[in-house]
């Protein structure tokens, strides 16, 4: 459950203040598949950083699963990210000289999970992300782009987070593998997770069930993507 209320984000650079987000409010319920769309410079990346607890707003409140995240210190934010958020990046960000399995285990290592339990959960996450066991011991830099993104998805999934936050996840992939990755998000969403997709491409955003459009730091559109809705009831009140 995400509640964004009156979020403002300013960047101060010397004398100049840039207003990147100018009062944005919305909420996302459990199990929603939402795309945040907007051209570059619209403030969607900043919004993603705030939702992902990588940054805090200048003013306004952000409540995640009932916890106020808007005024935490860096270590508290790190703990929120560890427990509640799984990131998928455009550039994958895998550790190149580590095995696929190790990459997926990394969030569990920081959570202090035992080795056996860790390996078991990492393997389950990899299979859920569509990467079969034959590749688990490969080094991550030996994989294709699509496979790398599946590893990254498994890594985002492994801690069983409330939100999967994907930043242009298909940006470095060809359209066919991109579609496969988007299908993967679809099935993760079907398991009841919040999936938030940040993109500038209407085609990618079209895979989500709800599309938020950000422009010049303001939320300009919040629409339900009727084509994709499988269970309308969930969106009745939004």
């Amino acid at each position, binding site marked *: 459950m995400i509640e964004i209320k009156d979020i403002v984000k300013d960047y101060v650079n010397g004398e100049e203040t840039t207003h990147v987000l100018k009062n944005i409010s919305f909420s996302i319920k459990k199990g929603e598949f939402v795309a945040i769309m907007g051209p570059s410079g619209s403030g969607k990346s900043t919004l993603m*950083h705030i939702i992902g607890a990588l940054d805090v707003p200048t003013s306004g409140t952000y409540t995640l699963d009932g916890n106020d995240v808007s005024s935490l210190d860096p270590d508290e934010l790190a703990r929120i990210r560890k427990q509640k958020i799984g990131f998928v990046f455009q550039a994958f*960000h895998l550790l190149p000289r580590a095995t696929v399995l190790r990459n997926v285990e990394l969030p569990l290592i920081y959570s202090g999970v035992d080795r056996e339990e860790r390996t078991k959960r990492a393997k389950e996450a990899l299979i859920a992300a569509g990467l079969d066991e034959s590749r688990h011991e490969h080094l991550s830099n030996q994989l294709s782009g699509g496979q790398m993104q599946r590893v990254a998805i498994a890594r985002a999934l492994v801690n069983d987070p409330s939100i999967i936050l994907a930043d242009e996840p298909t940006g470095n992939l060809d359209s066919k593998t991109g579609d496969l990755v988007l299908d993967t998000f679809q099935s993760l969403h079907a398991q009841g997770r919040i999936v938030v997709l940040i993109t500038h491409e209407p085609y990618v955003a079209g895979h989500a069930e709800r599309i938020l459009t950000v422009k010049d730091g303001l939320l300009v559109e919040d629409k339900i993507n009727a084509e994709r809705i499988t269970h309308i009831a969930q969106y009745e009140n939004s």
Partner: protein
Amino acid sequence: MKTADLFEEIYLGISSNKARSGLTMLGIVIGIASVIAMLSIGQGAKAQIESNIQSIGSNLLMVSPGMQRGFGSTVSAGRGSAQTLTLEDATALQGADGVGAVAPDTSKRFQVTAKGTNTNTQVIGTTPQYLTVRSLAMDSGSFFTESQVTSRSKVAVIGPTVRDDLFGEGSNPIGQQIRINGMNFNVIGMTVAKGGSGFSNQDDMIYIPISAMSTYLNGGDSVSTISVQAADQASMTLAQDSVTAILMERHHISNAALADFSVMNQSDIVSAASSVTNTFTLLLASIAGISLLVGGIGIMNMMLTNVTERTREIGLRQAIGAEKGEIVGQFLGEAIMLTLIGGGIGIMLGYGISLGLSKFMSLTTQVAWSSVGMAFGVSAAIGLIFGYYPARRASRLNPIEALRFE
């Protein structure tokens, strides 16, 4: 994060760039090895000098003429320059409290010849007790006796080096004649080689009766040193006190500060010599310490490069929930691990160098446990000091900027 996992991450971090880690470690290896080797040379020299001093004799007190000052005068003629000790002083010390044996001596360098060969060596005039006091032993022949001292016999006991120089190695010098300052002396004995070296080579000496020395060679009855052997280790202080008291009374001196002689015991001599070797060791170690410092800067440089190169990885670790302490732990851990492994290899290499030096360069070396422990501590400290700044820098990266870093 669990400790075992932290170690695994540290290991993976180091082993992922083996060439660079190895080269960085090399700086520490060389630094630690040179510290160990230099300290071993210093400590070896110290041990050797101490054993040389011990080999002069045991429980030994050396009485030497002090500086002479007139009553109320501040003009000093310099320590040892006065001719204030006499044979009678030595005789008076016999049988004093705590005193075992007493041997006065007077020495001077002379040109010594024998059948066309010649050498320049130290001639010592003394008494038979010298043998006991200085723990000398006879290799062949015998030392001169009290009666030979009384009768001013022109007999000589030579050291093995003198034998080698005058008669050739391995020859029998007993019964041969040598000329000291134009006087013929009969060689009646030769001392056992002590293998001393440097300024006090006891093998390069000629011993003659002190009476013969003063009558034929030196003139006068002043002595240059009186060697006193205490009865045992426990009576060193007693002997020192009674020797001082007797000599002060004989020389009519009531204020110990004005004494015209000085009494030194062996531990004074050892500590004087140690202070020299300690300075020497410190000098060697500080030169080696500089290379260790350079190695430490190498570590810092490598870790800074590492942090820059792995900025995106740090950003990713932060994004998936690594806290500041965990990032610091990883990078600091990598630096400390590198220096500890480097230190370990350096200790072994330094030990090898010191063995090599003593084997092939005939230098006495000694690797003390304290310097091994110190080397290990220093390498850990270097990792800590030079690794801290890069690690802190890594932990303070902004995750958003770190993830975007190209």
